[in-house]
């Protein structure tokens, strides 16, 4: 079973240092970079599927040139190799371009499943997996909480989280799956994995290499006009009282704010 996993290098949310640059784009130098959290759940699910069914996991990123080091962490978790689409012309790429480029790169690697995190911590549009599926003419199984391929039948079954619980959905493979945290926590890379990752291939591909039908010269479909700091919250009140008194303080606050 061949599984492609989209892994986006993003600013480390734990560092809390994300910021926009003067061009109103993400300032990539401002923060340490990690693999997007939801993509790690996708990668973990992919590794478990390959451990159970054979095959290999390939990670695919579209990212600046220096992102290869972040991709190597995905290799240390157990992915066999990486494909790194990087091209100065893709800097600040919009959603349709990102989708077209990732779909074109995916087309060059035969796969049974393409997995991606349900959204990214620095973008959160949550649209890339659906867009890539549409470009490839493949079914999208989103909000996945479990993934069960049936190689014999050529189908994959997914528990799709719903407002009330989950739906059990099924589609033919190859298919695209948008993965949630409910799939289970990602493993930590072992020392052996970290050593092995050093010699694994990360193939660098330019825009021309992946033959994506995009024309960055025409400009992006969306643009940021301005960015503001969020309104500051007034300093809160801190109380330390015996429980019964504290309870009264809270209820008075709620009554004062007309919440109860």
């Amino acid at each position, binding site marked *: 079973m061949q599984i492609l996993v989209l892994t986006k290098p993003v600013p480390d*949310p734990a560092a809390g240092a994300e910021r926009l640059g003067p061009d109103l784009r993400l300032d990539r130098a401002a923060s340490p970079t990690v693999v997007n959290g939801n993509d790690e759940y996708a990668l973990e699910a992919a590794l478990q599927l390959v451990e159970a069914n054979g095959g290999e996991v390939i990670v695919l990123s579209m990212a600046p040139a220096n992102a290869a080091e972040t991709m190597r962490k995905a290799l240390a978790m157990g992915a066999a190799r990486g494909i790194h689409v990087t091209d100065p012309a893709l800097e600040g790429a919009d959603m349709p371009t990102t989708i077209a480029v990732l779909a074109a790169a995916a087309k060059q690697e035969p796969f049974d499943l393409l997995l991606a995190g349900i959204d990214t911590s620095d973008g959160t549009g949550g649209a890339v997996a659906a867009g890539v599926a*549409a470009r490839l003419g493949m079914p999208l199984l989103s909000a996945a909480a479990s993934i069960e391929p049936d190689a014999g039948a050529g189908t994959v079954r997914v528990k799709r989280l719903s407002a009330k619980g989950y739906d059990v959905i099924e589609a033919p493979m190859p298919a695209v799956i948008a993965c949630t945290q409910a799939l289970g926590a990602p493993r930590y890379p072992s020392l052996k994995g970290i050593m092995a990752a050093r010699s694994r291939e990360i193939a660098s591909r330019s825009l021309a290499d992946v033959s994506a039908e995009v024309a960055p010269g025409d400009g992006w479909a969306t643009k*940021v006009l301005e960015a503001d700091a969020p309104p500051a919250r007034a300093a809160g009140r801190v109380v330390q009282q015996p429980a019964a008194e504290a309870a009264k303080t809270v209820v008075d606050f709620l009554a004062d704010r007309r919440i109860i």
Partner: protein
Amino acid sequence: MPPRILAVGEVAEGSLTKLSTEVATVARKLAEAAGGEAVGLVVDAAPDQAAAELATYVPKVVAVTNPALSNEVPAPHVAAEVARLLEEGVTHVILGVSQDGRDVAGTLVGLTGLGLLANADSVEWQDAAPVSRASVLAGKAITSSTFTGARGIVTLRPGVVTAEAAPSAGSVETRDPAAPAVPAPKVLDRVEEAGAQVSLEDARIVVVGGRGVGSPEGFRMVEELAEALGGVVGATRASVDAGWIPYARQIGQTGRVVKPALYLGLGVSGAMQHRVGMQASQAIVIVNRDPDAPIADVADLFVVGDLFEVAPALTAEIRARRGG
């Protein structure tokens, strides 16, 4: 050519969702400001009731009866109808930020190459184009963005606008379904899980249990307080990862984003991942032993104390005041 703004409606158990009434309100107001026209779309196995509801918000609704939606994932079918309407002159598409809304938006971007402005907190018509304001980078900035071309797709977050019906109801036009461009997965079963009935995004009061709650039993105390307040229970990633409460209850970057009248946090430390999902709440009350917990930065009222003493006292006090 005047803009035509499409509000994509979603159906739950035959009715239009609350989020769709908000989407329709935004579409109508944009069209009014732009001197254009607002259109609604409902695609369902039985769309009539939802289409009639949507017509109270926009002057014209396209209702598509598609029997496939009784046992297939809707996004490919809905995207096919939107693609057809785009060919017929729709310029802008507004969808709600729900799983189906995101899936339709992504499918459309892939099919059409149109730009996407995601997670809008507001959309206004300025200088011949919609301008979307959205919170980005873990709440560190609010951006105003627009399209560089004459068409595009916007997704609107739940609860950011108040739905307002139009002065008079619009008309409903029915159509036969278009063939989807991408295969729709089959729905084999729909499973309801306990405790997931009330949508977190729609709740006026959310009571959240964090790591400090300590156990599934601890969550009963959270539930009792939520019940006394008439609210719903939410969770942090730590309490979900510990298996004390289902993922559907998680608030934060990889969970739900909520903006209730009251967020009451018990044993919540306030990791950035969580704050992104709750910091826009109107009032924030925290009970935590550690006055230096990062959540203090956003708290309106911070009770320093043992949640196992304060929460039951609070439940009792609320019940007493309500005479129950």
